[in-house]
């Protein structure tokens, strides 16, 4: 393997698309283009704001996936972890409705993190201790979260209030960029911090090296004294927390309420973003932005009513792009080598 920080082709493509998008957005919004022009519809500030809102849960979900999969635990249950986080955040928010708003919302975030962590831990326990097939364990998480949240949800309860935007001094005054990036509610900022932290953590710390070793070559990792299963438990639980935060974002920052099945496939698109981004944090962020943009554009086109392509076909884009990416038509993606395999130390295996 070459230098681990070097971007592979797909992650580069994903990132490039996201950057090009931002640059076009800046240029278009600074030029005196009439409001009803196609450029305004496709790259206006409102479209890009919507893109960012759609991107945050996808990016967080993808980071959750990277955390688990880099240590060798396949996680297709992100969808369920997100839903559990969303529901827990909602219940905690409703229970503390009469507290000061910020305190109540933070309790909601804590609950979302805790629920996600619990889901992550269950996934690790099933995958490692009980040797359940990891894909089936992920499927279980999705079904469990879907069933439990529907069963426990009381449609009469209402969460009062949600996170409001915090303008960053000076930066938010920059034209266009300030409007898009520096005037957002807290979980959005947190998402970007998590992406950067995960990149640094994975590629520039001891923890990251050990985690990746557990996912690439557990036998070798074990030989040099790394506790493979400890890192798998730890990172899968952390991944669950990040996915739970994505759910918390939906309830506490984006929508303000819980709805049954409100994750609506975001966990699966996150999975797609992770793969398209080649298991690299920035690559996955780029892919998440691309997928978020298809949602932003869909919204903008519907509002503007200018295009005859049925909205269903625009919505298909993220899924098609993912198939194209995993089929290797844009440069092969490569998962961590030891993914999905139970690791047993010498001796403990029968």
């Amino acid at each position: 393997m070459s230098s681990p920080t070097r971007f592979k082709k797909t992650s580069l493509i994903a990132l490039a698309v996201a950057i090009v998008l931002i640059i076009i957005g800046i240029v278009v919004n600074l030029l005196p283009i009439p409001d009803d022009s196609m450029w305004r519809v496709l790259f206006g500030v409102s479209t890009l704001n919507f893109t960012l809102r759609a991107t945050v849960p996808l990016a967080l979900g993808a980071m959750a996936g990277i955390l688990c999969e880099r240590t060798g635990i396949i996680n297709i249950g992100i969808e369920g972890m997100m839903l559990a986080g969303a529901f827990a955040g909602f219940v905690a928010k409703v229970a503390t409705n009469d507290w000061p708003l910020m305190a109540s919302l933070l309790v909601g975030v804590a609950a979302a993190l805790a629920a996600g962590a619990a889901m992550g831990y269950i996934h690790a326990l099933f995958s490692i201790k009980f040797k359940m097939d990891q894909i089936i364990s992920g499927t279980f998480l999705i079904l469990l979260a879907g069933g439990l949240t529907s069963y426990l949800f009381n449609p009469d309860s209402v969460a009062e209030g949600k996170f409001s935007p915090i303008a960053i001094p000076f930066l938010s005054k920059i034209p266009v960029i300030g409007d898009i990036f520096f005037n957002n509610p807290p979980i959005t900022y947190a998402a970007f911090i998590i992406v950067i932290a995960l990149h640094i953590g994975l590629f520039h710390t001891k923890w990251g090296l050990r985690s990746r070793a557990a996912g690439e070559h557990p036998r070798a990792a074990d030989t040099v004294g790394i506790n493979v299963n400890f890192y798998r438990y730890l990172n899968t639980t952390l991944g669950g927390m990040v996915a739970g935060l994505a759910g918390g974002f939906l309830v506490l920052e984006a929508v303000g309420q819980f709805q049954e099945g409100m994750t609506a496939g975001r966990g699966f698109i996150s999975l797609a973003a992770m793969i398209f981004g080649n298991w690299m944090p920035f690559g996955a962020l780029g892919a998440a932005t691309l997928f978020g943009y298809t949602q932003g554009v869909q919204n903008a086109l519907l509002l503007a009513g200018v295009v005859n392509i049925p909205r269903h076909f625009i919505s298909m884009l993220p899924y098609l792009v993912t198939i194209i990416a995993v089929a290797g038509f844009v440069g092969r993606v490569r998962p961590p080598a030891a993914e999905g395999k139970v690791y047993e130390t010498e001796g403990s295996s029968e």
Partner: protein
Amino acid sequence: MGHFSLRRLFRSLLIPVLAVLTALVVGAVIMWLAGDNPIAAYKGLFQGAFGSARGWATTIRKWSPLLLTGLSVAVAFQAGLFNIGASGQFMMGTIFSVWVGINFADMPAIIHVPLAISAGILGGLLWGAIPGILKVTTGAHEVITTIMLNYIAALFAGWTVYAGGSQGQKPGPLWDPAAKAISQTPPVVESARIPFIFGPPYRVHWGIVLAIITIFVMAWLIYKTTIGFELRTVGQNFKASKYAGIRVGWTIILAMMLAGALAGMAGAIETLGVNFKFAPEFGGSVGFDGITVALLGQTNPFGVGLAAFFLASLAAGGAKMQFDSGVSSDIIQVINALLLAFVAAPAIIRYLYRIRKSPEEKETTPKISWGG
């Protein structure tokens, strides 16, 4: 298959039966913790499924789609593939069959019904072939491609019946103008509807007989034919089957086509026997339930039949359970999920009941990995 022995039969039933019991007990604990009365709930559930002729009829009506999607997932498992795409294949089967079903109004039923079912099978087969071909030609993992194809199928199906929007969005080709703003197809014509065995209010149609025949066909195909042998060999030992001269690529594509065809057939039977039209909200959790059914049935066609019957009875009893005991029928999805966990990880059941693993016993749960 080896010779039959009572001890072996007992062994093979032990884990699934304990898994069912454990799932029901854990489900009861969850209900109790949530402040519901689990005894009243299970009583309502049982009565809803088996307490009346109508209950039995509902159970049988819900049996066929679960049975067929279960077989779909099971046949893919036999070949070492995880078909998480049954819901997309079901959807395509639905769209193909509904298209035949709402057209050709003057065709005699003896041709129209088989034609519409065949169309559904074809729709599912084609949709199932895509991940198979992608896996063989490019190595793309079927779990990812089938999940993505589920969404594409749902969006495609949604578009075909789309009523159009106020912003100049055109309606879809299968939309019923008589339904005005509602996105749905016109009703399936009389000649394309699967006849009833027991008419209203029971509405049990001949589709279930077709589904049961399919169990035997699949059992024969998997255990008695060369194709089935190749399928199982590829599933058990990918490398060895290559050296043995089996055309592995073709076998994988065939397995996915079979899986798709079965799920497509489920969609066709639901459309032509129960719903008589298509609207985007149809389908529901049928693909995921197929996974639970396949694993509970230990991927054996007859086991799948039994497992599907059990899940069908849960689904059928849900309405009465909710009505009688006030317990939301959503708990059934929780029980299904638990059931999936317990059958997929026999280690949990063995751990809970301190059962030892017998040396000749093979894990029935297939192992799947990203690498392929």
